[in-house]
């Protein structure tokens, strides 16, 4: 196989038939080029969407209450449902629930420090909220269990609040007044991939105590340990039936208790992308097959054109195997080389698009609102595409090579 002379023989025929070689190679290069562009775009789309999901924990779930709309156990519709602290204990004990954080809605809250003041959203929470929302702490710490137990008057403020109230001064350890109640700042945080950091976080127990919340809660943010769609739906179902029984509403009543299951959405979206990917592969392979058929056809013409030459070679002493080798190797060489060029150009173009996107996005890249991210083809795909090409070249060359080997020198040499 690796006989330098053989390759020299093939290279010299290729070199002396440049136009033919170019035409043969072009269809394959085009096929691979298109495949890479399609795959790259598909990857970009699914990477973009996946990254949007990834801002928060993928296995997160939110649960909130409303009013019933279905009569149940003799109770009329229109009855408000309200969570309490005991519901928090219940939800943390439901199998499949990893962590849970309860929230009590505070309405408008006014923050002031010295002469500066402003209205910001106060998120009351358990420490576990950080598992769901994944805040990044610039300084200090997040809310902890001791804060909850001792109902400490502490607050973690967003970066924007820090800048608005404290300007350049450090906030850690300072007291801000929240609706005129002094709270100690224990941390400054940002939400990654978000431009607005105007939220403050406060222990939910403190909020209930200080701001007349009693033991009421308005929603839960939880993480679950379901990996598959089925598991996550089973956990969702369990939570729903548990609360339906306790608060006496119909299990099917979506208004009494609302749920948003991120994993479910994520998996469904990823399924769509999986389907798109398969579709792209089918189109790509189709394009490639068109290329292979093209090469095979051109090689057949080549063999026909070279009938006389092959006849001469055979008369001079070429064995059928060497003739097969000549045509097959030429076909493989052209497909592989052309395919490689298509591969490089295709992935190169996608890298360029990626580069341009990163450049132009600049700050906006951190916003998390991209639907197109890193539209590149990974190395493994590129390698398998190359292997595919060699196989393609062999297939493309097989029939023409067989035809070439069966050429009889007397027929080829007979003067027309």
């Amino acid at each position, binding site marked *: 196989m690796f006989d330098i*002379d053989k390759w*020299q*023989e093939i290279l*010299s*025929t290729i070199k*002396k*038939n440049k136009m033919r070689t170019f035409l043969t190679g072009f269809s394959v290069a085009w096929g691979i080029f298109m495949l890479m562009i399609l795959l790259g775009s598909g990857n970009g789309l699914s990477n973009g969407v996946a990254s949007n999901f990834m801002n928060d924990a993928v296995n997160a779930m939110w649960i909130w209450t409303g009013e019933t709309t279905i009569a149940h156990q003799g109770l009329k519709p229109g009855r408000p449902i309200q969570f309490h602290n005991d519901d928090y204990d219940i939800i943390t004990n439901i199998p499949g629930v990893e962590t849970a954080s309860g929230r009590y809605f505070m309405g408008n809250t006014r923050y002031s420090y010295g002469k500066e003041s402003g209205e910001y959203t106060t998120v009351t929470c358990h420490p576990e909220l950080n598992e769901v929302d994944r805040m990044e702490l610039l300084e200090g710490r997040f809310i902890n269990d001791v804060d909850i137990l001792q109902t400490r008057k502490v607050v973690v403020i967003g970066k924007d609040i820090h800048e608005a109230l404290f300007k350049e001064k450090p906030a850690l350890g300072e007291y801000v007044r929240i609706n005129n109640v002094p709270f100690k700042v224990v941390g400054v945080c940002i939400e990654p991939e978000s431009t607005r950091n105007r939220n403050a976080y406060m222990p939910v127990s403190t909020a209930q105590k200080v701001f007349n919340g009693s033991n009421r809660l308005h929603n839960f943010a939880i993480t679950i340990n379901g990996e598959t769609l089925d598991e996550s739906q089973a956990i969702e179902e369990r939570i729903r039936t548990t609360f339906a029984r306790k608060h006496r509403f119909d299990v099917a009543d979506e208004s009494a208790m609302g749920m948003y299951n991120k994993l479910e959405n994520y998996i469904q979206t990823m399924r769509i992308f999986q389907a798109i990917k398969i579709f792209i592969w089918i189109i790509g392979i189709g394009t490639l097959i068109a290329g292979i058929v093209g090469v095979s056809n051109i090689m057949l013409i080549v063999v026909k054109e070279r009938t*006389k*030459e092959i*006849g*001469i*070679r*055979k*008369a*001079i*002493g*070429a*064995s*059928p*195997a*060497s003739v097969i080798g000549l045509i097959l190797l030429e076909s493989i060489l052209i497909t592989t080389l052309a395919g490689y060029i298509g591969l490089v150009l295709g992935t190169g173009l996608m890298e360029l698009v990626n580069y341009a996107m990163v450049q132009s996005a600049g700050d906006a890249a951190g916003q998390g609102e991209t639907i197109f991210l890193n539209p590149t083809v990974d190395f493994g795909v590129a390698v398998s595409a190359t292997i595919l090409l060699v196989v393609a070249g062999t297939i493309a060359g097989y029939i023409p090579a067989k035809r070439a080997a069966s050429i*009889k*020198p*007397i027929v080829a*040499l007979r*003067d027309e």
Partner: protein
Amino acid sequence: MIKLNNIHKSYDMGSSKLHVLKGIDLEIEQGEFVSIMGSSGSGKSTLLNILGMLDNYDEGSYLLANKLIANMSEKKAAQLRNDMVGFVFQSFNLISFKNAMENVALPLYYKGVNRKKRNAIALEYLEKLGLKEWAEHMPNEMSGGQKQRVAIARALISNPKIILADEPTGALDTSTSYEVMDILKEINDAGITVIIVTHEHDIAAMTQKVVRLKDGRIDEIIRNGELREFRHTYNKELVTA
């Protein structure tokens, strides 16, 4: 060297069969210079192709160097051709995208000689045929006589025992034809058996033995001593024509 015994050959023409050779008995010794003559369609090329193992025969036996040539695999035939025979054709049959040297070197490629060595040997042969300056030229840059000399060099390079030439002068003018015949004569003097097919009596008259084919059979064989008479007949044919 060559022993043909009752060779038959027919071609399938769809439904019918064309019986071209109808029992050829012929013996050719090592070092002979033979020409095959006969009217068009009499089976000269067919006979030469069988001698060159380019085609197989239907009946009879063909012994080449005491070896029976029959039922060979294509691979074996190719090898034997490469070792034993050199071909020269009317239309030269050079490979158009290879230069003179590469064309001459090609049989050695199939013998497994490396590129450097075979090109050097090819140059030697081109020099012998007075074509050294033309080594790098492509076939379409050469005259018919030059092309035929390249083809002869190619036939010689693998040191064959036999040179088979199907109308080697058919596409050449008289003086170039004679030049080519001189070369073939030299080759023959070196001990190589040369068999040519020709239409031309003056060309045939330069060989030592003329085999006349007629209707797929050998009509007559004219040997060395009778060549004078052959020339006479040839002159007579010229007159009657």
